[in-house]
């Protein structure tokens, strides 16, 4: 395999930036954001360089490796700090550094009034580095480092304004729920080592075919658990909505474009495991299907623009997971949707940020309205993203989403029909809630607060939005032209025989567009034709209430995990005090008590002492008597 010495710079540059910014402290306040952006940008440049190198090699020789040093080596457990850049990771590298750099630029302006902008850039750089490590690691353990690294960065960024207790709680929640997922990754690695004896991708791939299905299934399920945590999939999805507490660029970068898609990366990367573990694969699909509906349903009821987008993200990642769960035919489409989603969702988030920027950080869409006139650029970029997510041809989503729907229908049998229907339904709901967002935000009457003076964002903010909008428009076409991405990625996946097509592509597209049209229409009827209340109405259906409550996910967690957990903690604290320590103290008390009791023997009367001696002697005689008997 080709080796390269420059892979490390991809990670090292942003990491260096983060280190400098963190250590330099306030001294770097003046130039910190520039350094951060530069570091991210140069990393992007390195990524482009690598891409160019890669393009210059033959299809099978494209992957590049760099072994940095021997990281952990104990017995047969040998893990190198090694990087692997192949066709899959380069996609991510470019997405991360590219979108990342754009968001850096956006943030320069967005965060310009924040006292701690330098720290923000430090965190962003840290995130970029960690995310790159995640996708570049050549073994699950290296991936794990990045995996938790992005968790940390996410934690720091969600809690960037942690002086607000709710935000601090949100960041903690995100971290802890991610940790639950991480546990799955740990298990997967442990199982891998115990069964295969190695944790590197290459090693496991090599051994996968003579490893039992049971072990691979276990690994697969555990990897899925990890993916659900990081990618906010059912049942570990609850943190994502709260994660919107972070500054909007963070939501765009981490909670839309990159980090949350790590689960898709993990499953795609582990294709050799899932391909050999149909049960696990089925679970992946089920999780994806549930989440895509789950997220979509939540999205219909959210008034907070960021939370609505977050729900949408959850739903879209559900598509990707579903796609990835469909096996070799789906991997490429999942990745494609991931990339296109990276563009349009990041763009929309930035747009949302732009709206908030102009609206005094108001997030409630019911307080928006008629912003089209005041923020034309934002409206346009957002609108392009909107079209893309709806899957309107020829926008990006059309290519990627339809492929997933199509593949889902083609999964075969009842499964295929079921999955196809779900994806179709999802597309419809997506259309509904996205249209709702558009209408509430940009059209209709202004329902602003008194102080609001909406205005268009400055150049540094709209430029990235514009670039992303271009991506939203064109990426789908570019990636699918001549099956570019599919072919690019194909060396990585094992190929199976083509599935028979259940429905022709054109039919699928038509169905999808039909669903979208229905969704859009309902939204129009509901929000454009009627007056929208600036305060969320209370007399809504139970369904809406539940949807507003994020489908009771928090209540469920609270009732099933948190409360019992807290009670268990309290009980154990008391038990420790009363029973375990109590037993110890009891021994002490017993000694004290018996001591006081035995003191009584010492009555002070010489006659009783004599009696003691006498009795003692008598007992000795009695003992002798017994012996002699």
């Amino acid at each position, binding site marked *: 395999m080709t080796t390269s010495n420059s892979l490390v710079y991809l990670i090292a540059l942003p990491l260096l930036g983060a280190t400098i910014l963190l250590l330099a402290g306030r001294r770097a306040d003046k130039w910190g954001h520039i350094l951060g952006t530069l570091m991210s940008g140069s990393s992007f440049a390195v990524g482009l360089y690598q891409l160019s190198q890669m393009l210059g090699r033959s299809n099978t020789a494209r992957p590049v490796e760099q072994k940095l040093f021997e990281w952990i080596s104990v017995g047969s457990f040998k893990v190198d700090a090694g990087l692997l850049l192949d066709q899959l990771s380069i996609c991510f590298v470019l997405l991360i550094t590219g979108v990342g750099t754009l968001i850096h630029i956006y943030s320069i302006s967005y965060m310009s009034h924040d006292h701690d902008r330098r720290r923000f850039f430090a965190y962003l750089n840290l995130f970029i580095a960690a995310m790159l490590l995640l996708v570049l690691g050549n073994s699950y353990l290296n991936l794990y480092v990045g995996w938790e690294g992005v968790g940390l960065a996410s934690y720091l960024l969600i809690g960037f304004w942690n002086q607000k207790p709710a935000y601090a709680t949100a960041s903690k929640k995100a971290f802890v729920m991610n940790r639950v997922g991480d546990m799955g990754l740990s298990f997967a690695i442990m199982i891998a080592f115990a069964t295969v004896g190695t944790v590197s991708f290459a090693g496991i791939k090599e051994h996968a075919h003579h490893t039992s299905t049971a072990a691979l299934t276990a690994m697969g399920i555990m990897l899925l658990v990890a993916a659900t945590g990081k990618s906010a999939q059912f049942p570990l999805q609850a943190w994502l909505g709260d994660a919107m507490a972070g500054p909007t660029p963070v939501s765009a970068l981490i909670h839309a474009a990159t980090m949350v898609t790590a689960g898709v990366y993990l499953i795609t990367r582990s294709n050799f495991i899932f391909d050999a573990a149909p049960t696990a694969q089925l679970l992946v699909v089920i999780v994806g299907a549930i989440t895509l509906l789950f997220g979509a349903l939540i999205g219909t009821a959210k008034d907070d623009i960021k939370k609505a987008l977050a729900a949408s993200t959850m739903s879209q990642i559900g598509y990707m997971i579903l796609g990835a769960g469909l096996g070799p035919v789906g991997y490429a489409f999942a990745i494609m949707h991931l990339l296109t989603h990276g563009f349009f969702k990041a763009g929309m988030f930035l747009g949302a940020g732009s709206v908030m920027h102009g609206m005094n950080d108001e997030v409630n869409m019911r307080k928006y309205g008629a912003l089209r006139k005041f923020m034309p650029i934002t409206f346009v970029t957002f609108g392009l993203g909107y079209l893309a997510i709806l899957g309107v041809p020829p926008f990006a989503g059309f290519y990627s989403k339809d492929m997933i729907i199509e593949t889902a229908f083609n999964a075969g049998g009842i499964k295929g029909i079921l999955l196809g229907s779900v994806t179709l339904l999802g597309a419809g709901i997506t259309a509904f809630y996205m249209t709702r967002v558009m209408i509430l935000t940009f059209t209709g009457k202004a329902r602003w607060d008194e102080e609001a003076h909406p205005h268009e964002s400055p150049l540094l903010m709209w430029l990235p939005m514009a670039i992303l909008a271009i991506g939203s428009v064109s990426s789908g076409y570019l990636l699918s032209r001549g099956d570019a991405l599919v072919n690019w990625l194909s060396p990585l996946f094992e190929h199976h025989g083509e599935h028979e097509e259940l429905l022709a592509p054109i039919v699928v597209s038509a169905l999808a567009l039909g669903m979208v049209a229905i969704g859009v229409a309902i939204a129009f009827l509901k929000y454009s034709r009627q007056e929208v209340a600036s305060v969320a109405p209370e007399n809504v259906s139970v369904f809406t209430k539940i949807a507003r409550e994020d489908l009771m996910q928090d209540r469920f967690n609270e009732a099933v995990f948190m409360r019992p957990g807290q009670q268990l903690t309290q009980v154990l604290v008391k038990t420790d005090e009363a029973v375990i320590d109590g037993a110890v103290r009891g021994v002490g008390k017993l000694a004290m008590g018996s001591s006081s009791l035995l003191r009584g023997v010492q*009555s002070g*009367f010489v*006659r*009783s002492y004599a*009696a003691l001696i*006498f*009795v003692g*002697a*008598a007992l000795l*005689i*009695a003992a*002798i*008597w017994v012996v*002699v008997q």
Partner: protein
Amino acid sequence: MVDLAIAVGQTQTPEAVLFWVLAPLTVAAALAMLLVKKAVHSAILMASVMINLAIFYIAQDALFLGIVQIVVYTGAVMMLFLFILMLVGVDSSDSLTETIPGLRPIAITAAVGFGGLMVSLIGRATLGRSAIGLEAANSNGNVKGIAQLLFSTYVWPFEVVSALLITAALGAMVLAHHQSLQLRPTQRQLSTQRFRGASLANAAGLPAPGVFARHNAVDVPALLPDGTPAANSINATLQARGDMLTSGTFELGKVDTSKGEEK
């Protein structure tokens, strides 16, 4: 102790008679020691036990010990006891009620157990050799035999015992000897003191006990002209020992003629 097989022929019948007469007496005396209230009686009973033991010693061919028992133990040691008893009040009698709860039952149980088990044990003891008797050992006379041992084999403990005696003497001195830390006033000084003191009340000497009282025993205080008892008419020792009688019943003013002789 059948197995011990002390040849019955060796111990003559008279000894048996002696034993069976004296042993019950000895035990009775010993028991009585515990049961009598007055210490003096105990001492006398103790002496009688000792004398009985002396007789047993002699009966068992331990002539020297028998004599020593009487002369030294009974004669000297018990007399010492009696002296001390006199010193601490010969009249004093103990109450025999037990004040420490549970002690007496414990003592009696222990005693019965101890005695009973010991007797039972001795009953089953065997020595594996026959009793010898002292005929051979005493062939040169009991005293000579003992002397032989005492001054040869046991000369070291014998000498050491002398140290013990010195210790005893020294100890008694330490505890009992009032060293004259200051010169005792002479007769002359006392006389001077009597007349040059603050008051001449005692110039003529202390009042004698019993004066003006209706009883002139040494433990009855004299009465002063006003009828109150004069404390200083009684010996300080009696006072200290609490043997002084209250003079109330002997005061002139309170004569109870209907009452007969007190005491």
